[in-house]
């Protein structure tokens, strides 16, 4: 039982560090990529990775409401991606 918990914790921290690295690399891509839709894709990807980070944090600290924050972030990221795509393609928001 204690061994399983230890393995689980180690894998959680590996996932946490990996996702922090992934966010850093995708922010670098966001800075370097030239076409505007590539930047939009990377922005969407960064919001997905931050959501993954929140989900892992929810397992590391089960008493804190990280999953609720994640639900709000997913909703805002979805609306933001659609609004930005529509704005870039049609040059107007509505």
């Amino acid at each position, binding site marked *: 039982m204690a061994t399983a918990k230890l393995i689980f914790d180690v894998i959680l921290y590996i996932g946490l560090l990996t996702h922090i690295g992934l966010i850093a690399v995708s922010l670098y891509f966001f800075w370097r990529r030239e076409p505007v*839709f590539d930047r939009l894709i990377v922005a969407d990807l960064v919001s997905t990775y931050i959501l993954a980070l929140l989900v892992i944090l929810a397992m590391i600290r089960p008493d804190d409401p990280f999953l609720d924050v994640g639900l709000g972030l997913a909703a805002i990221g979805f609306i933001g991606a659609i609004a930005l795509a529509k704005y870039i393609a049609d040059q107007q928001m509505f």
Partner: protein
Amino acid sequence: MPDFVLATFLIIAALFVLAGTILSVIGLLGLNWLPDMYTRLHATGKVGLFGVVLLLVGVFFFGLYEADATMVLRAAILFLFLLVVGPTAAHAISSAAYRFGQEPYLGPDGKGGRDDLARDVRQKAEELLDEHRRKKKKKK
């Protein structure tokens, strides 16, 4: 619950967390390697999203281990929400890119693949034009 069942829940959750992390890494590799915007969107949209979804399945099993019903329920809600929202956002981005005029990658010599959407759009435009001409004739 007996100890070995709880340990099994933890191990399953750990495997799902590992799988989700690996899928997230593959998504970023696809973003770096694939040739054009649509294929990159395919890699990040599917793989990045399923990374989070597998992590949420891990949260589901972790909630069973903790005997925390609200955690299981929240994980299930976020899971369903992401499965609806992720493809919708990817579709909105790709259709906006097509309307903006992003060219799809058609192989190294520019002849491979095919652009079905352009054919459909042309067909629809020709139908509309025919209808317009017919109406004009009727007026005369």
